[in-house]
């Protein structure tokens, strides 16, 4: 599967199927800090991602502090 990440923008490829939680663990990403998007909608933690899926992992953290 192709996995797009930002800051910096990059695309990673993984073989086989795995759950959303397993993918995030593999990338050492905190579930509280990101959303996983497939085909324009969200996928929850236990969803299985297929080999042919195109996934975006989007950080949700933002903000300056005055």
């Amino acid at each position, binding site marked *: 599967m192709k996995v797009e990440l*930002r*800051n910096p923008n990059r695309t990673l490829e993984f073989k086989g199927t795995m759950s959303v939680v397993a993918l995030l663990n593999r990338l050492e990403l*905190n*579930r*509280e*800090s*990101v*959303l996983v*998007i497939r085909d*324009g*909608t*969200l*996928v*929850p*933690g*236990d*969803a299985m991602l297929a080999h042919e899926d195109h996934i975006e992992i*989007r*950080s*949700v*953290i*933002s*903000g*300056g*502090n*005055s």
Partner: protein
Amino acid sequence: MKCRVCREPAVIDLRRHNANFCIEHFLRLCRDQVAKAIAEHDMFAPEDRILIAVSGGKDSLALWDILLDMGYQVDGLYIGLGIGEYSEQSVTYVEKFVESRDVNLRIIDLPTEYGYDIPSGSRAAKRTPCSACGLSKRHLFDQAATEGGYDVVVTGHNLDDEAAVLLGNTLRWQSDYLGRQKPVLPAGHGFPRKVKPLVRLGEREMAAYCVLTGIDYIVDECPKAVGNKHLGYKEVLNLLEAQSPGSKHDFYAGFLARAVDRFASAEDETIDDRPALRPCTACGAPCSSEVCAFCRLVERATQDVPVKLGPTAKKEPTSL
């Protein structure tokens, strides 16, 4: 995963609620949480004229969408900060939203209307970019709300923002800031009422709201905010949240329920000791000195004088 409400397939898991939701019931949860915050803190009434500060980011656009769906009259205000490509892109998301919802938007562009941008303003005023940005935004929001006759200014500060600010203020025991850290800042001394209806929702929920409703927003972080302390506090809090879901809510809600008034009373005592506010001689905004901080920033940022550098100290050779 099944939706807790209808048992249909879920699209999001919210660990702090120990629940999963389908699209319909997640969106309802967001609206219910905003309605609860408005009622709980008596933020505004249905007939009030509301001015929302929008940035092109997920929080302010999602909040505007929710308030419009709830039937409130809400106009937008966007400040062009002059932060290169980031500002050029962010305004397009706001304009796209405005077009889709047919609502009123006022744009104030700092470079065009005030002759400076945040990078140059922060250098001239010797403030961090986030500090110069915050000062500029607060002043212009206040001014626009007063001039436009709005009853209240709403901002998209969410639970994560408030918990991170609370952590920063607590680490330094800044009692004056702690006393003011409430979801409602009442009107007074010439300042408009300001409220934060997203204090019951985290930023993951707001990003999810935008994805699920098709609201496009600027995803990339402001380049001037990258690496700041506020983002560091959020990262720390999310590590705690992952270990113990609900920690951020408990931290902030517990502060509001059991601690803020203790600091607020300390803050109230110091109000009388502060010099009386008077109109800024340049712009008329209430301030404690002759010229307000915003006008001083504009003056410094637009002066055509190079910054003077002092002599460089010679380094003494060091030995290990």
